[in-house]
């Protein structure tokens, strides 16, 4: 779960990592409630999960009170990579002397946490040349290690003390909240030498949420997503018009690639996993039926874990109940697949022996139906 900036900053406050004084406003009436308290200049920041907000113009500075209202409106109506903000963060501008970069992330390859620091903050870290990546233990990060990180960045005195304090608190946050990533870009060094977190990017391990009831308020998922998750599916909505259903994340991803290669446009990814029954697959089709853009459904099923005849029954039921009407192109192999084929022989579902055949037939149909 990727937290929005203000949510990450709420965690920073909990862990006593300094942030600028800020307010939240969802609409104009909330804006007018905070307007009089603001000490200008302020920075308006659209709260989005996607990156690249600065470049996209989703962060605006206001020097005068008159600018507040129009800029706030502009941000509320501004789409970035398909996403609109549900809230705007209003932050009092701070007097910055210099910007640093700091992040802690789960290094999957090394199966440990790594820390990245750089004296060049505020830009995309992938493009920063002078960065230091080091393995650390988030349970054993000592004051001495934290100080040495600051020393490497060429800071000293009050700044070094303030920075190492942030490093230690960030490690504590990562450990206790079970984050896969906690990034502060930039850490601002103020004129008085102290450090402040200007941004927050935190990703929490989804599988650990059951231990963190305090974080569930940050879960933001669509109704469809929620419905899918309740049934134990992995569901991702995509841009196209072909829904792809299968058992296994890798298999569905692979199917997505082949559809794409064949000129088709996937509109949904749905993995119903290994625990599927007639009921759960029916529910999967129900989720798909709510995506009006879907013109055809591709089912790629490798049997063995799932009984393929159960899938066939679910497809039959979905048609019979009028839940779906679009054609289904299915490749079903594995246990009970002969039976499944027989069951579907008189339906709007077409069965194929290979996924390539199913896809080429489907893509042809989509082409014709345009």
């Amino acid at each position, binding site marked *: 779960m*990727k937290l929005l900036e203000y949510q990450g900053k709420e965690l920073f406050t909990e862990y006593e990592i300094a942030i600028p004084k800020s307010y939240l406003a969802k609409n104009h009436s909330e804006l007018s409630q905070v307007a009089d308290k603001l000490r200008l200049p302020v920075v308006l920041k659209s709260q989005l*999960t*996607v*990156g690249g907000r600065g470049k996209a113009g989703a962060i605006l500075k206001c020097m005068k009170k008159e600018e507040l209202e129009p800029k706030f409106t502009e941000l509320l109506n501004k789409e970035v990579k398909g996403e609109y903000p549900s809230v705007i963060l209003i932050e009092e501008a701070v007097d910055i002397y210099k910007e640093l970069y700091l992040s802690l992330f*789960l290094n*999957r*390859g090394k*199966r*440990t946490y790594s820390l990245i620091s750089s004296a060049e903050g505020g830009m995309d870290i*992938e493009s920063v040349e002078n960065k230091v990546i080091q393995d650390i233990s988030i349970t054993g990060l000592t004051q001495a290690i934290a100080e040495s990180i600051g020393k490497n960045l060429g800071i000293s005195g009050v700044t070094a003390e303030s920075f190492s304090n942030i490093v230690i608190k960030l490690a504590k946050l990562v450990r206790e909240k*079970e984050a*896969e990533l906690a990034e502060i870009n930039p850490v601002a060094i103020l004129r008085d030498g102290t450090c402040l977190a200007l941004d927050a990017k935190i990703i929490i*391990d*989804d*599988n*650990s949420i*059951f*231990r963190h009831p305090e974080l569930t308020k940050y879960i933001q998922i669509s109704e469809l997503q929620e419905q899918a998750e309740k049934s134990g599916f*992995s569901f*991702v909505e*995509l841009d196209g018009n072909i829904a792809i259903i*299968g*058992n*296994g*994340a*890798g*298999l*569905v*991803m*692979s199917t*997505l*690639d*082949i*559809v*794409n*290669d064949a000129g088709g446009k*996937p509109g949904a*990814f749905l*993995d119903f*996993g*290994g*625990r599927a029954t007639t009921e759960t697959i029916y529910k999967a089709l129900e989720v798909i039926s709510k995506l009006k853009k879907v013109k055809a459904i591709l089912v790629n099923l*490798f*049997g*063995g*874990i799932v009984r393929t005849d159960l899938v066939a029954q679910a497809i039959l039921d979905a048609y019979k109940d009028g839940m779906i009407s679009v054609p289904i192109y299915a490749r079903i*192999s*594995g*246990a009970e697949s002969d039976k499944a084929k027989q069951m579907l022989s008189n339906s709007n579902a077409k069965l194929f022996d*290979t*996924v*390539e055949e199913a896809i080429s037939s489907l893509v042809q149909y989509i082409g014709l139906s345009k």
Partner: protein
Amino acid sequence: MYKKFDIFDILVGKAEDPDYGNKPVVIQGITGNFGSVHTRLMREYGTNIVAGVTPNKGGQSFEGIPVFDSVKDASKNFNVQISGIFVPAQFFLSAIKDAVNSGIKLLVAIPEHVPVRDAMESLEYAQSNNARIIGPNTPGVIVPSVNKIGIMPSQPFKKGNTAVFSRSGTLMYEVSFHLSRAGIGQKIALGIGGDPINGTNLIEAFDLISDRDEVDSVVVVGEIGGDAEESLVQYIEKTGFSKPVVAYVAGRSAPKEKRMGHAGAIVYGNYGSAESKISSFSRVNIPVAKRPAEIPSILLKLMK
């Protein structure tokens, strides 16, 4: 990094062993929904399941298999080195500790949704006791015609000399199905697991077969997320790994920053992207199939 780990010695044994090809296995979570179904299927395939574990069900039996409260109790009655773990994710860490403390050396960890912190702690625990975890979130491991510890169907696999290592479960079946149909059997097929943290990563999987002459080739099934494929390529370069390898990478068309089903299948920037993985393989002349069905013909060409 682990010491050299002889998985075949544990799974199959040596010809002189009285239980050669019939190594005893304990199933943790044997009475659960998933555990019970697959215990049956594993047995049908020839896996010698001698004991099951479900806390508070010690003394019962499951289809003739005695059930114990813990692996510790089971190990008083049986000399077992292999465990198949089917417990819910929240009990994963304690199940691992119970198994490791009781002398289990190979832990096949099926559960999905294990928190990263628990996976990391499990790994450290296993490593410090010279035990090896496969998974979590793995379909398991199969030595065709000998035994399987996991949830994979049996039909796709045929005895042979290729090794299949896969980050995806169903793709492991799919790829093995295509290989078997083309007459390429498998010496071993092992699921790395779809999570960010893997008890046996791709490099360690390659290490299991690197000096085994009977394994003549490897198919590696990767997917988006992390840098396991990139690290594997470095390992292949560094060690001069010389068996023919064919790769496949799922998720070329997946959008960035979206978790594609597996906890570990997510791209951030270029980190974890399919292009990065494919170009790594290409750099060392490892062919990358565009579709699973292409893999056998590419491999056969390499083996000529």
